[in-house]
């Protein structure tokens, strides 16, 4: 791009004409605090290094996308996160969405399942089937996927502390149907670091947790080659209040920690790296989000190639799922949420996502009803099929603003990653509460900006209407309290039927493996669930060896 004396003079003339013009605000800031200019020109770009900074889609550094033709060849996977109450109820919702054109499954588990308690555990009271489906046994898992072809649908499971057990249950169900593990494709989130940092469903201390993550990676590299073994998740870090820059930096720093943990155990980087994937948030600032996705791809490519010496181009590629930002949805005037979700989903698509979940309009108050879930899916389909944005690869590439913002997010995120490196890495940053404290401060700053009106939220601090939140009151999804009783009864019946001696033997074998730091825990977990051990029993067996993590009350809070 030519930028000569003439252009510079023209720019000065424009600046002079813009000087005294009225402006809505003194300074314009992205939510990450990056000050944006009124206008971007070729002058703002980092330099004339197109091949090095942008290149071509499907090629290093993948700034413009991981596939050569992106959505021209195949649209992103429409993967709506769903699950509630019992396995039967969730199964019904999955079929409802698949029949309406959803292309992948994404399973939400309830909190007891996520934290390794069976539905009859005292701490599970009131939580069974609430934010997702309750899975205690292999029979629950069987009911969850009834009539769904496991060798043809890819399944994503939002599960972390108990990821190894849920994957084992999934494999066991496939085996019962005669489907070998090699034919299974999907993802377990299995990102424990962000649980300590932001989401809270940890069980064990960080070290044994990291072992479980890498055991699963090693096992899948051998036995379940099409499985994505870790979905390194910035989503929850962002929901907890982090800025876009922090989401980018902390997610990549967590990714670095997993790669280090795996290579530290002797796994060869190109054996597992192609099966790592990412999960990002699509928040409200349209261009900052697009720039974040583009910067993430470029940074990960560099990390894998230069820092870890990966040779396989598939190891350099950052593939990611995106979910629109639940925390931006408002209980006030909930129909506005459809518009928010549309913009956020569009940013994800323009940012080159491989898979997308669009939130439903009622999620500031409850889980989505069937109707609102359908509208959320239709939002994706309209973007994909009617808007034309999927017809060109990285259509915003070359936008002076988007490129300048991509560069800026990248440089700010590198600075944070260097800070984390100096602390000794992401595991240390989490153990010391450093990430948590930064996230907490950003959340507070954001809330203050909303309170002061500095950050407008339509229906909340501007254009309010009295009684706006009551509109959805009558049409919210309700979980019947009977779900908990039924699930507990089913669990008791299962336990009464099984071979108790076989379960006891399998649990002993698992405990021995847990005490041996060189053993991989996946095979004995798989054996245990085949023998009829419940999810809670597997977790309890590991608790006796690893202990439980308890976050100290944060200093100053």
């Amino acid at each position, binding site marked *: 791009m030519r930028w000569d004396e003439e252009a510079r003079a023209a720019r000065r003339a424009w600046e002079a004409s813009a000087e005294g013009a009225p402006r809505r605000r003194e300074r314009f800031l992205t939510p990450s605090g990056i000050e944006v200019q009124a206008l971007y020109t070729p002058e703002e770009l980092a330099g004339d290094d197109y091949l090095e900074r942008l290149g071509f889609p499907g090629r290093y550094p993948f700034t413009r996308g991981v596939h050569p033709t992106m959505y021209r060849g195949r649209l992103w996977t429409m993967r709506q996160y769903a699950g509630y109450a019992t396995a039967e109820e969730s199964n019904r919702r999955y079929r409802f969405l698949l029949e309406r054109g959803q292309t992948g499954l994404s399973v939400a588990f309830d909190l007891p399942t996520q934290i390794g308690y069976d539905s009859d555990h005292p701490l599970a009271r009131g939580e069974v089937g609430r934010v997702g489906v309750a899975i205690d046994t292999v029979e629950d898992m069987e009911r969850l996927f009834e009539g769904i072809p496991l060798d043809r649908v890819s399944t994503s499971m939002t599960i972390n502390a108990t990821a190894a057990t849920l994957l084992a249950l999934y494999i066991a169900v496939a085996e019962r149907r005669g489907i070998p593990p090699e034919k299974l494709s999907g993802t377990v989130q299995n990102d424990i670091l962000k649980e300590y940092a932001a989401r809270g*469903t940890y069980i064990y201390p960080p070290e044994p947790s990291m072992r479980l993550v890498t055991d699963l990676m090693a096992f899948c590299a051998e036995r379940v080659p099409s499985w994505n073994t870790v979905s390194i998740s910035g989503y929850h870090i962002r929901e907890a209040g982090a800025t876009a820059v922090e989401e980018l930096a902390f997610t990549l720093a967590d990714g670095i920690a997993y790669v280090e943990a795996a290579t530290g155990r002797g796994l060869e980087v190109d054996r597992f790296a192609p099966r790592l994937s990412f999960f990002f948030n699509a928040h409200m600032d349209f261009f900052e989000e697009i720039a974040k996705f583009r910067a993430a791809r470029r940074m990960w490519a560099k990390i894998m190639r230069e820092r870890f010496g990966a040779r396989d181009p598939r190891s350099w590629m950052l593939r990611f799922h995106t979910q629109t930002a639940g925390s931006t949805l408002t209980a006030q005037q909930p129909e506005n949420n459809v518009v928010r979700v549309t913009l956020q989903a569009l940013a994800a698509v323009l940012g080159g996502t491989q898979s997308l979940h669009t939130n439903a309009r009622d999620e500031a108050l409850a889980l989505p009803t069937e109707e609102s879930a359908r509208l959320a899916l239709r939002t994706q389909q309209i973007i994909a099929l009617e808007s034309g944005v999927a017809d060109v690869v990285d259509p915003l590439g070359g936008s002076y603003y988007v490129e300048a913002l991509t560069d800026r997010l990248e440089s700010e995120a590198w600075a944070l990653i260097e800070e984390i490196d100096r602390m000794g890495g992401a595991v240390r940053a989490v153990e010391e509460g450093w990430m948590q404290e930064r996230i907490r401060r950003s959340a*507070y700053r954001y809330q203050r900006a909303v309170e002061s009106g500095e950050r407008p939220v339509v229906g909340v601090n501007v254009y309010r209407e009295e009684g706006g939140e009551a509109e959805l009151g009558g049409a919210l999804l309700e*979980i019947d309290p009977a779900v908990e009783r039924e699930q507990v009864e089913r669990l008791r019946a299962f336990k009464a039927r099984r071979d108790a001696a076989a379960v006891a033997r399998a649990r002993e074998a698992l405990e021995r493996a847990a005490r041996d730091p060189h053993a991989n825990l996946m095979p004995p977990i798989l054996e245990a669930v085949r023998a009829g051990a419940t999810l809670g029993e597997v977790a309890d067996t590991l608790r006796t060896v690893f202990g439980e993590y308890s976050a100290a009350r944060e200093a100053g809070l």
Partner: protein
Amino acid sequence: MEERPIRVLVAKPGLDGHDRGAKVIAQALRDAGMEVIYTGLRQSPAMIAQAALEEDVDVVGLSSLSGAHRTLFPEVLREMRARGLGDVPVVAGGIIPPRDAAELEEAGIARIFPPGTPLEEIVRAVADLARERRLAERG
């Protein structure tokens, strides 16, 4: 005699780990000059009531996003009454649908703050409830 600052217990009952709201509110109350104790995650109703007793607080604030509020909030109230804390006002916030809010207020929760409630409003309500209780105590 100078009155001691208002003391508030902010608590997360149940298994839900989303404590962004709880932390933001804890900070706002602290900025308003109150003493705030945050319990951290995964607290049972009995643990919360016990903490309220030991910390001698004026108000208890509960936060929940998982939908377990209908089971857990009334239990917190029961556990508090069992420890002689029936007069300590309990307020709550989080993902609580309007019809549940009405039910919980009937069960004895002093105030429910729906999503989007301004921090200032929460701070004012907590301060008012604390003062009312202190006045009532003095008879």
